[in-house]
């Protein structure tokens, strides 16, 4: 089943052409990794999928992204709704520092009008458990979100994203600011999450891509060079440039 289908996607920052004619099809409840050297457009690409790219001044997008068959860039679609259904976890953990751990997770729910304490309590507990953070924070839910360690903050951000029940989760290099133990926990988590969610993860760490993903796509200079099953990409790349990159000859 395909969840997201990208057709002829171009993205620009003022006059820099950041993404050039990307076509890709993302399968439901699988993990798709995006790899490539820095500046190749990986982050820009996933930021187009939840319409976050256009928030930056002078940024433009053209082409189509079909989400469950509907173009998210058509004028009938509201980006607010898209961003709720396609969640995102960022490179650096960014919990809201003035909100407590509980309120960080509940933030998105409250925006959507959920007020009853019982409902909120239930979902906050459930999502914190899903993010494998519950046991560590259950006794200090009222502490500030930034009182946690970096890895815990990132899992808190994952819980915050999960709470609004997205269908797709975008991870933008979620482990690049974390130590190896925290990284392992997040990877474990991604592995569990794919049972219920479609996941796209940007990473510059090829081992990570190989460990967590089902499909891998290789970006270079704003173009999609190769896309296929992770196993195929890493064992038998078709393109010379992909081979050069995964064998560590550049990047």
């Amino acid at each position, binding site marked *: 089943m395909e969840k997201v289908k990208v057709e002829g996607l171009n993205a620009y920052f003022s006059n820099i052409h950041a993404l050039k004619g990307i076509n890709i099809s993302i399968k439901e409840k699988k993990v798709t990794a995006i790899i490539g050297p820095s500046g190749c457009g990986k982050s820009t690409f996933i930021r187009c999928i939840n319409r976050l790219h256009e928030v930056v001044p002078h940024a433009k997008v053209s082409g189509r992204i079909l989400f469950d068959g509907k173009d998210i860039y058509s004028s009938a679609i509201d980006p*607010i*709704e898209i961003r709720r259904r396609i969640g995102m976890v960022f490179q650096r953990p960014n919990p809201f520092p003035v909100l407590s751990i509980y309120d960080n997770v509940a933030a998105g729910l409250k*925006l*959507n*009008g959920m007020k009853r304490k019982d409902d909120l309590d239930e979902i906050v507990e459930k999502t914190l458990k899903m993010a494998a953070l519950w046991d560590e924070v259950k006794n200090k839910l009222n502490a500030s979100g930034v009182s946690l360690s970096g890895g815990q903050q990132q899992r808190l951000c994952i819980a915050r994203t999960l709470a609004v029940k997205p269908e797709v989760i975008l991870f933008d290099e979620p482990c690049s600011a974390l130590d190896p133990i925290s990284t392992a926990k997040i990877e474990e988590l991604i592995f569990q999450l794919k049972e219920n969610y479609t996941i796209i993860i940007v990473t510059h760490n090829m081992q990570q891509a190989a460990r967590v993903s089902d499909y891998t796509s290789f970006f270079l200079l704003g173009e999609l060079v190769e896309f296929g099953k992770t196993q195929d990409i890493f064992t038998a790349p078709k393109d010379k440039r992909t081979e050069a990159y995964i064998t560590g000859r550049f990047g």
Partner: protein
Amino acid sequence: MNIYKRRKIINAFMCSATFICATITLLPLISIFIYVLSKGASSLNISFFTHLPRPVGEPGGGMGNAILGTLTLIGLTCLWAIPVGVLSGVYLAEFGNNKFGAVVRFSADLLNGVPSIVIGIFAYILFVVPMKTFSALSGAFALGLIMIPTVMRTTEEILLLVPRTIREAALALGISQFRMTISIVLKTALPGIVTGILLAIARIAGETAPLLFTALGNEFWQRGIMQPIAAMPLQIFAYAISPFDDWHRQAWAASFVLITIIFLMNFISRLVIYLQRKSLKAK
């Protein structure tokens, strides 16, 4: 109504509310401009700048003495406040990275926050009481206390913007730190310091409260700095609370002149600061 629609409406409402806030704030500005322009500019003529005030009912008359008085006060103030302000600023920027520097910075901040009317009392106690007369000198002292913190902090900030490479180049030539500061760093920072001074002058030019019981005001041409002296803001105040239309017109005219001077200084100094920052950053 579903929650989603409600959120959209709140969003539209709040975003337009911020726009309205910005617009209604411009209303008083526009209104003041209209008053000052329509009532002030039309009352301007040569005699406004050259003549003394006349008693009520007599036509003509001007604010020559007040204009001269304001210029004299500004001159006198600059005479002591600029050296003190600039030198202290230089000291803070070059040698002020210690406890003493922190104390000086703190007292400048403190001085900056003192209400100008309180500064007036201070100048009264220090000058008017022992000299037994209101005077231009005491007025200039009060204005100087308002000017110094501004000049000092802008000087310091501008000097800190001077790139380290310039300092190091000078030091490498074997110049002592003191001479280097004076000759090279100060020269590079001069435009910025001058604009800081202009801004400070723009601020004191309109000050009234500290002059009320120092410079006091004077109906006639000034007779030396040990005597009471007229000033435009004082004259505006006196005329504004009088019941006479003639005097109101004079006060509008004076407001027009004062605002024009202040805005021009503000505008020039901002422009220069902007250009200076840009060129320093480019380097």
